[in-house]
């Protein structure tokens, strides 16, 4: 980007330019037409020469404060005024403000005879007067070739034209000369011979009943110009050239992640959703919910406070809003808040370039953060496949350069290979979601997977995709020996698994109870044993008591004997032994 800008800056320093103010044209000419020099615009009838020339003057007068003289050889001033009113140009007003002067030059061959020498001093004087009257910096001669029809002496005419262009240069005006396209030559009368600083060719081609206007810079002295043919269009805002091929891969990259509007899908996309400013493609067969995904994305963006543009080639805005309400999305609230704009048109309504130009224009006006194109395949109907492909690349480049996240949908026809897009743009999209049908057990269910998503660890899982009245829901699919299970098969599988689970629970409970009982049993036995042991202990105590009682009796007896002074008996030793215990 900066490199390009620097390059342009250098060029503009080299050669002074008169900006045309025409969208796109200044870009490809690196600043406009050469200042103070004549520019030749040639093209066949109806190619838009007069309009381009007129817009050069009008923009000059309104945007660059440079007055202009329009010398018309074909149309009168009222006719011109009327013709360009449809483009939003009010010539009367400009004439009143002395920013524009229209001089109609009528050449009627039938009332002119020639005898002897002459020159075109009259034309010079008229032009000079007009230029001086309003201090014009820009001049248009449309179409000066008409002189060739009005005057016979070609030798004089050519010499005078050469002098005229020289004179215009000396005057220092930026002149635009229009000329009819000739056979095998740029102009019918070889004007390119005289005007050699800048030559622009306009072309109007009809292919497959759809017309496209194209512009090419044939030569531009002192300026490295784009050499391609650039499509252009004429609409209610005048001329616009699409310098689309000048777009490159220099867009800024954002690390910001934005939600897809479906939490489960965000999870699949590395947990955070898409990258901002990338291109997302959803493809799938008919009725798989592509538009619903787009609507979710739009809804999420609007909730974040981002503006969205929705280009629908199949449904009208009303239909979209109604249909999305059925899955619980209220898009109407966003359109009312001017957060969301729908643009619905049939793809075949215009040519491809026109579509592209309209998208460009609306995007520039509305400045959205998210653009949805639904579906891109429709655009093929408006042109051939190759054109549609280049157009989409241009469009994607354009959106990327603006940091707009593009959400495209694409219908895959049932017969085709599934992972294939009609316009072969799969290589230029960043994230590709695929929605497909799974037909099983007499029903059709939807599944979604992430085919690719650049720069994030995305899920490789297939998810069942449900459209509920609360929006899109993603569920795990069952992958079993019978293949992928969805819908009611999934439900029955779920039921089966639930039953098994229940059984397991019951079994576990039963085992638990058994264990408790066993434990109780053991504890009971332990208690019994303990009782037994206690009983044993008790009987031993009894023994000891017996012994001490016997000893006591013996002692008593001894004491009795002592008191009676009897002889010592053997018995007396027994209590002694007991005492030592």
């Amino acid at each position, binding site marked *: 980007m900066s490199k390009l800008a620097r390059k342009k800056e250098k060029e503009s320093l080299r050669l002074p330019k008169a900006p045309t103010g025409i969208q796109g044209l200044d870009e490809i000419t690196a600043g406009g037409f050469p200042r103070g020099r004549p520019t030749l615009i040639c093209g066949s009838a109806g190619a838009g020469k007069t309009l381009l020339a007129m817009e050069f003057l009008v923009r000059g007068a309104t945007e660059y404060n440079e007055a202009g003289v329009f010398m018309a050889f074909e149309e009168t001033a009222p006719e011109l005024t009327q013709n360009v009113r449809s483009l939003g140009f009010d010539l009367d007003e400009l004439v009143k403000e002395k920013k524009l002067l229209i*001089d109609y*030059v*009528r*050449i*009627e061959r039938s*009332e*002119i*005879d*020639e*005898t*002897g*020498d*002459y*020159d*075109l*001093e*009259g*034309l010079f*004087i*008229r032009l*000079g*007067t007009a230029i001086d009257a309003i201090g014009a910096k820009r001049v248009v001669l449309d179409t000066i070739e008409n*002189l060739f029809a*009005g*005057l016979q002496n070609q030798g004089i005419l050519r010499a005078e034209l050469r002098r005229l262009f020289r004179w215009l240069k000396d005057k220092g005006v930026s002149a635009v000369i229009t000329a009819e396209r000739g056979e095998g030559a740029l102009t019918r009368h070889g004007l390119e011979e005289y005007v050699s600083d800048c030559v622009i060719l306009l072309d109007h081609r009809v292919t497959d009943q759809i017309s496209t206007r194209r512009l090419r810079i044939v030569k531009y002295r002192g300026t490295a110009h784009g050499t391609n043919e650039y499509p252009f269009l004429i609409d209610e805002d005048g001329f616009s050239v699409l310098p689309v091929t000048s777009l490159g891969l220099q867009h800024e990259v954002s690390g910001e992640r934005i939600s897809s509007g479906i939490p489960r899908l965000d999870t699949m996309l590395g947990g955070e959703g898409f990258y901002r400013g990338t291109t997302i493609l959803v493809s799938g067969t008919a009725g798989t919910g592509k538009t619903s995904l787009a609507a979710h994305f739009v809804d999420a963006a609007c909730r974040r406070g981002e503006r969205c543009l929705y280009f629908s080639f199949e449904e009208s805005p009303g239909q979209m809003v109604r249909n999305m309400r059925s899955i619980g999305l209220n898009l109407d609230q966003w359109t009312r808040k001017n957060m969301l704009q729908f643009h619905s048109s049939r793809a075949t309504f215009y040519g491809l370039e026109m579509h592209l130009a309209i998208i460009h224009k609306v995007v520039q006006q509305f400045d959205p953060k998210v653009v949805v194109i639904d579906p891109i395949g429709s655009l093929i109907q408006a042109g051939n496949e190759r054109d549609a492909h280049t157009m989409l690349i241009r469009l994607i480049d354009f959106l990327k350069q603006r940091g707009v996240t593009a959400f495209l949908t694409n219908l895959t026809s049932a017969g085709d290979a599934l992972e294939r897009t009609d316009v072969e743009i799969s290589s230029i999209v960043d994230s590709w979601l695929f929605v497909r049908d799974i037909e099983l057990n007499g029903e059709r269910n939807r599944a979604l997977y992430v085919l690719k998503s650049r720069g994030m660890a995305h899920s490789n899982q297939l998810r069942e995709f449900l459209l509920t009245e609360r929006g899109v829901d993603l569920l795990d699919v069952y992958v079993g020996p019978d293949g992928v299970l969805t819908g009611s098969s999934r439900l029955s599988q779920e039921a089966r698994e639930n039953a098994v689970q229940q059984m397991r629970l019951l079994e576990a409970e039963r085992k638990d109870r058994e264990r408790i009982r066993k434990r109780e049993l053991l504890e009971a036995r332990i208690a019994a044993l303990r009782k037994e042991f206690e009983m044993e202990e008790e009987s031993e105590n009894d023994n000891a008591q017996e012994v001490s009682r016997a000893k006591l009796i013996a002692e008593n007896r001894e004491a009795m004997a002592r008191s009676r002074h009897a002889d010592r008996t053997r018995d007396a030793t027994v209590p002694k032994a007991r005492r030592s215990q």
Partner: protein
Amino acid sequence: MKKSTGAQPQPQSLQEIAEKNEPAPNDVWELRLYVAGQTPRSLAAFANLKKICEEHLAGRYNIEVVDLVKHPQLAAGDQILAIPTLVRKLPQPLRKIVGDLRDTERALVGLQLRQAPPEK
């Protein structure tokens, strides 16, 4: 001036139109010569015009010379591009002859003072 007409499919109407447009012999001729400065070509044109008028329109012509260098705004009125241009304002219809009128024959034809020479 008499115009010899051949056999025509609608002689009546065409004849009428031709006669209507034919300058009447006694009309006063209003001629205007546009020049740009006193160039040799302008002077020659004026001299040639004067000669033709004296020979063919003696006493019933007016020549007005307009110098566009002095009055550039007048160029638009008669749609003047080439210099010198002679404009026959009257009699109607308007005729223009560009050039220095060097070729008297052609000038006379241009002014409709003489029939165009038959094609060779």
